[in-house]
């Protein structure tokens, strides 16, 4: 960035440098004169007479000069030059997936009535927002098999951390929250960070062949004092775990079961509700939201009816208006920070509303069949890629015998870093390195059979191996 710091001409009496106007400021010199006079001051700077002299900022900011719209476009075009923002064919997942993004979704969420509105406190002029959030909540509840959903949260990781805090605050005599080692380490890190400062212990349940160790989990549950258990489905390594019996064991000692699920796979997979979870959380980015370097996505949280007043975040409910029409409104606000202050269920005071709209329209477009078809294609593609990689003889399954969905891990005996560099050179993001020798690859419905074959060729034929 060019931070030329030379001083500009001194401000005029009214405070505007050189009297030039700017496209976002409508004030003319004449307007300023009238308004200043009404306020009884001579210059806009006099409006800051109550700021102590020692705290006044008296120089120019060290920032570039204003860019015209044309220059701004050029600037960003240069930043997105193919060398600066390489568009790699994406076989990486690990919490962010390259799914199909229908054209109508992007178009509709740009409507300024949605984009430029505030949180829907004034229900009479916010039915658009309240209405789609109600649809969103219905869709999330249906996908996760839970009773109720909130209006969305920042991302999947913070939603999981909030669920951990819910578990802790619901428990009367608990000593810790259990988290499986097969939960995404990035999510675990956020949960641990929140827990550390909030003041409760997190205990890790180890993995066995890539899945949560049932022996270890059962042992901890038998000891008691567990406020909650957090699992992930499919887990970080892409494995679909069997949670049979866990919910009962957790409930037996009054803990709550939290399942972090990938919503796009829930078209097919057993739902958190069917597993007996009390809270379902996760990242909604896989529902067609562009990757955009990791955000914005959208966190979701759904829970059973009995936890409704423990759930953090906004909730939209159905009611009637004074004319007897069905209407929607923010409800159960007494849980929230603006009323409860330090006793609120959480400090969250927004939702990821526009991204919830994204998810809602995506699910409306894809519908019952489309979501299933996309999940089916992703599954088929991942298994096809896996078969072909194993057939090269250079890779072997990291967790043999485990069922997986659209993401899986393979071990490679050569130098994984140089293999990945080679793939990048050829325009492929071949996956995410999750161990010294372990590569994790994801396939979505976006990947063509040709791309899969080409990736297998690149990875299979790479010779320059340091073994």
């Amino acid at each position: 960035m060019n931070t030329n710091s030379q001083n500009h001409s001194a401000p005029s009496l009214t405070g505007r440098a050189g009297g030039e106007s700017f496209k976002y400021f409508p004030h003319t010199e004449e307007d300023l004169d009238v308004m200043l006079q009404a306020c009884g001051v001579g210059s806009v700077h006099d409006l800051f007479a109550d700021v102590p002299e020692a705290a006044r900022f008296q120089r120019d900011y060290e920032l570039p000069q204003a860019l015209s719209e044309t220059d701004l476009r050029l600037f960003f075009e240069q930043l997105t030059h193919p060398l600066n923002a390489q568009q790699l064919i994406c076989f990486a997942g690990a919490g962010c997936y390259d799914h199909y993004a229908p054209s109508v979704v992007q178009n509709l969420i740009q409507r300024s009535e949605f984009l430029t509105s505030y949180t829907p406190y004034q229900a009479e002029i916010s039915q658009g927002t309240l209405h789609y959030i109600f649809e969103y909540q219905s869709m999330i509840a249906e996908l996760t098999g839970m009773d109720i959903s909130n209006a969305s949260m920042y991302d999947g990781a913070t939603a999981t951390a909030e669920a951990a805090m819910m578990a802790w605050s619901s428990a009367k005599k608990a000593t810790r929250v259990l988290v499986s080692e097969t939960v995404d380490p990035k999510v675990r890190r956020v949960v641990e960070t929140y827990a550390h400062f909030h003041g409760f212990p997190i205990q890790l349940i180890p993995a066995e062949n890539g899945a949560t160790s049932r022996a270890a989990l059962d042992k901890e549950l038998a000891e008691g004092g567990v406020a909650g258990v957090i699992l992930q489905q499919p887990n970080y390594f892409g494995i679909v775990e069997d949670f049979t019996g866990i919910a009962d064991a957790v409930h037996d000692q009054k803990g709550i079961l939290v399942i972090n699920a990938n919503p796009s796979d829930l078209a097919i997979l057993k739902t958190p509700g069917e597993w007996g979870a009390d809270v379902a959380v996760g990242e909604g980015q896989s529902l067609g939201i562009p990757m955009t370097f990791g955000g914005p996505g959208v966190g979701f949280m759904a829970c059973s009816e009995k936890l409704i007043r423990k759930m953090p975040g906004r909730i939209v409910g159905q009611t009637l208006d004074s004319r007897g029409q069905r209407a929607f409104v923010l409800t159960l606000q007494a849980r929230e920070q603006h009323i409860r202050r330090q006793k609120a269920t959480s400090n969250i005071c927004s939702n990821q509303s526009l991204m919830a709209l994204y998810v809602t329209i995506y699910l409306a477009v894809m519908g019952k069949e489309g979501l299933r078809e996309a999940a089916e294609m992703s599954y088929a593609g991942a298994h096809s890629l896996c078969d072909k990689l194993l057939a090269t003889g250079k890779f072997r399954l990291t967790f043999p015998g485990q069922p997986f969905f659209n993401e899986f891990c393979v071990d490679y005996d050569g130098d994984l870093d140089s293999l990945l560099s080679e793939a990048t050179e050829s325009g492929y993001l071949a996956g995410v390195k999750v161990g010294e020798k372990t590569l994790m690859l994801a396939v979505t419905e976006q990947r063509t059979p040709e791309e899969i074959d080409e990736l297998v060729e690149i990875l299979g034929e790479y010779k320059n191996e340091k073994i």
Partner: protein
Amino acid sequence: MNRTLYGNLIFELSKKGRKGYSLPQDYDRTHSTAELPEALRRKEAARLPECDELTVVRHYTNLSHNNFGVNDGFYPLGSCTMKYNPVINEEIAAMKAFAGLHPLQPAETCQGALEVYFNLQQSLAELAGLSEFTLNPCAGAHGELTGLMVIRKYHERVLSDSSTSEKVAAGNEPSPQQGGAGKGARTKVLIPDSAHGTNPASAAVCGLEVVEVKSLADGTVDVEHLRQLLEEMGDQVAAMMMTNPNTLGIFEPRVLEITEMVHKAGGLMYYDGANLNALLGECRPGDMGFDVMHINLHKTFSTPHGGGGPGSGPVGVRKGLEQFLPTPRVVLNEEEKQFRVEAPEGALGSVGSFFGNFGVMLKAYAYILSLGRENVKMVGPLATLNANYIKERLRDDYLLPIEGLCKHEVVFDGLVDKSTGVTTMDVAKRLLDYGYHAPTIYFPLLFHESLMIEPTENESKETIDAFIDVMHTIAAEAKSDPELVKTAPHNTPIGRVDDVLAAKHPITTYWKSLEA
């Protein structure tokens, strides 16, 4: 905005057999999910709607007509800074080259994105008078929490540095799980009673105990009460959180004294950036003695509120505290002239999976570049001028509880004439009839009938004059026809809603509504 309600739910438009998508059909079908054990599959397909594309497009377009955004009209919502969301910023944030980047792709293949992150944080540091920012927090409240974590991490470090030898001798290393809440820990946070509710809520989530500092009658911090609190418990105080200008839109005149007092007691000063817009060009939090702060990009830096999010809540720190910022961190390797992603030791942890709401950062960065140094400095003065102008022009009909200059927003305590029984709620609802969004009402809590107006720098004198005229008209209506105002709004798609019904028997999904 439509005057009639568009009422269908997408589920009510669904018909079996319709579809609104098309996916490629040529793929390797060797495997299918039928291979998965039945115990791992859901029993019944999710009841998602089945609609053709046009039905979906019309449905959401019709919904948008029941909404009101900044592009529709004046939005004087106090403490929310509803400024114009420039269209060019949307164009840039939607660039395909950014949309297609995976957050875990090698740093050398996404230098452009890392440069945006790095330069934006540097720009914010300059604007705030601080050393470095993390852009990872997704919203203001998330930023507050992150900022308090920085503060706690700092105190944990101070505590362990100062007593390492002692503890080792006693075999009494504090458990890393306990948030440093052991002996000598600073666990209290001082918060003015006028603060926004998020401050105490964030403190509680961060494991801190809230101690309220009283306000004087003019709404500013009672410095004598603060002094007394610091004398009583100064060695337990982790930080004081302040909003300046405060929630009444008033600059805290003794801020320098306050920051010095808290520092002397060993605490840090946290600046809630909710009202930063007022100060752009005139004053920087770092120069007032604040150590940690958050900025709401969706307020001060023009990114759209999107009906409640996504926002972005970058957190800045003064020199010496950078090491505690959450990971991942984007750093510039000066020698290689390369941006890198790092997760240094000593960081407080992580507050999100990746880099936060990158798409929002693009918009804020485009905004700063569009304004440039010559226009950024006019933001605070013009916003403040607009607010003071409204204050002077409305004080005949609306009760001004605090005299003197305000900053970017002004608070009234309802109508001057209270005899009509028309409340602030009624005035707010009547404004909707005239095509304005309502101001913030019943906050701050210091007054019973708070009406908080924030015009922003983007509004023209004509817009503001028209708003002032309508406010006067409503005041006249309150006298001549109070029922008209008390039963407002009349011209909106729906009338006032039954909050009690919604809260007593919550119906929060379509499925539940079918049972009712």
